[in-house]
């Protein structure tokens, strides 16, 4: 392709390296400390819903079209922005728990509605089923479910969706 079109425009999939390069990925030590939001929103789109939705005022955007910048120290990983982001582009990752599991929080807008205890398919950014995980928390606002699933630690940066089987 050349001409400066980033690879994620060709595939619809963004890599962790790209997120790091754009400064959208929290630093390792912050990830190890507790749940934190990751905005996978790499283009300067005219949107700033996350800024006004965060109760901690942790997100800022220059004007209406900059990239969302999260103050990693202010973010408490509550997931409110996950529910509010119209792009369904924000995820919360918690790598702080000892043991082999991490917790990933994703938005979900499909039937059946997820329930705590459900074992669901874990989907990667390209829709591959990469494993199964248990729903540990699920709440809804304006029909968007915010679902936290338990996943093997090595999948924490891969799982970005779930599928609840009927």
């Amino acid at each position, binding site marked *: 392709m050349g001409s400066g079109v980033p690879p994620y425009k060709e595939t619809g999939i963004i890599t962790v390296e790209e997120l790091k390069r754009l400064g959208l990925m929290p630093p390792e030590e912050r990830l190890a400390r507790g749940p934190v939001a990751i905005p996978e929103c790499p283009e300067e789109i*005219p*949107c700033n819903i996350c800024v006004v939705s965060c109760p901690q005022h942790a997100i800022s955007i220059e004007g209406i079209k900059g990239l969302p910048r999260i103050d990693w120290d202010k973010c408490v990983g509550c997931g409110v922005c996950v529910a509010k982001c119209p792009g369904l582009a924000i995820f919360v990752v918690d790598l702080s728990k000892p043991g082999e599991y991490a917790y990933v929080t994703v938005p979900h807008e499909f039937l059946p509605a997820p329930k705590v205890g459900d074992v669901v398919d874990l989907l990667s950014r390209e829709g591959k089923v990469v494993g199964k995980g248990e729903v540990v928390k699920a709440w809804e606002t304006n029909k968007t479910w915010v679902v936290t699933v338990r996943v093997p630690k090595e999948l924490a940066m891969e799982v970005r969706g779930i599928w609840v089987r009927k």
Partner: protein
Amino acid sequence: MPGTPPLKDRRIWEHPILTFKRGRRVKFYFNGNIVEGYEGESIAAALYAARYDVFSRSPYKGRARGAFCMIGKCSSCFAIVDGVPNTRTCVEPIREGVKVEFQEGLAEIPSATGGLEGKDEEVIEGVDVLVIGGGPAGLAAAIAAAKHGLSVLIVNEHFKLGGQLIKQTHKFFGSKDLFGGLRGFQVAEELENKVRSMRNVRVLLQATAYGFFRDGWVGVAGKDRLYRVKPRFVIAAPGAAERHLAFPGNDLPGVMGAGGAQTLMNEYGILPGDEVLVVGSGNVGVIVSYQLLQAGAKVKGIVEILPYIGAWFVHAAKIRRYGVKVYTRHTIKEVWGKDRVEGATIVRVDEHFKPVPGSETDIPCDLVLIAVGLTPDTRLLAQAGAVVTWVPELGGLVPIRTKYLETSVPGLFIAGDASGIEEATTAMIEGEIAGLSAVVRAGADDAGNAAERREALLKFLWDEYRASPVVARAKAGKLKVTVSEDEMERIRVSNPPPVRFGS
């Protein structure tokens, strides 16, 4: 003539976002067969739900015709309704006992008993602003004008207000004061409630503005009468029509506009197909794919001729996550089926967009959605004598305008998709600017405040919203057709407007 009774109906009963409030059951006839629908559905929607795909045959070659745009813009859904041929069944609500008949080619001219007699006419004079179109642009314009005390008449071709917003189930971008974060249909509800609460706004539904006449009269065709309107100002916001592509089989029922499919599934709760191929990976194609998944359909893929996905990344990521494949560097070669799509052949293209022989893939599907962009509906504006020009970035012919959205016809303003394709957020901003422009020009009491608000909106629109790189193309287009007041005066000298408003 397809007379076979339908199988299972196509209505959706469970949806993750929408609750379909269906009206009471209504029985009507299609070729003498009883069809059941729900009050509030259009004839085309109810027939489609009952699995009738073909409503007429073309005069030339007798090709099957059915639903395509579902918003009254393409004439694909013609049928004979209570004796009246060439009725656009997609904008005709069902009524108890209405007789719909299949139209075989050109129809006979209806007799006087066909229901056309006895149309009376109402003359509406003294209204300050006539708003043509009740989508986000028209509604925002009406609210802005009425807020400042002007009397407003909204005429809307569709039998519901809200335009394209009523079928948008996803949450809108933008900022909170621009309804960002709300779902499209929720924005429509808010605008409609606001308009309905204003006593100086009158709304005519199923009322089509059909032409401008000498001395500033505007003709409006209503359901059971004609209106002759003489407004001080006109704000035209009739929206856009979907574009089509040329390929063999592109007229088969089951090839549909993406917006048409959205209308069926999100407005009426009718599944447009079970297995779908989407052509075009812009925002519309990608959003409609996501909505199809939500409605329970299977999306077999999205075909995109360019080497990259056109939609905003966040929209694209949403469908990729659920495994929808995007065939970049591919185009549609043909669609096959008998009276309904049964499958499509796609083909890879080289760097000159030429199909690569031998790279075809067959994809069985029953629905092919065309999502290759919209084209502004400027027919009425051109008829009024507004100078229009071809701007590819804006989707086609658009009127030249000042930054206050006045066309070369004085007192005739434009807003929304009809002024060049952008989105609902900008449609609402433009609508408000156009409404405020009428207020300023009318010299209303607080015209000063209106002018101030208008400047603030212009600043936001041009310097902030349109500064985003993802809307750069549309911005460039709008820049091309926005001229200074002086320049507009010169245009008016060389192209004298046949009518004038604003006196």
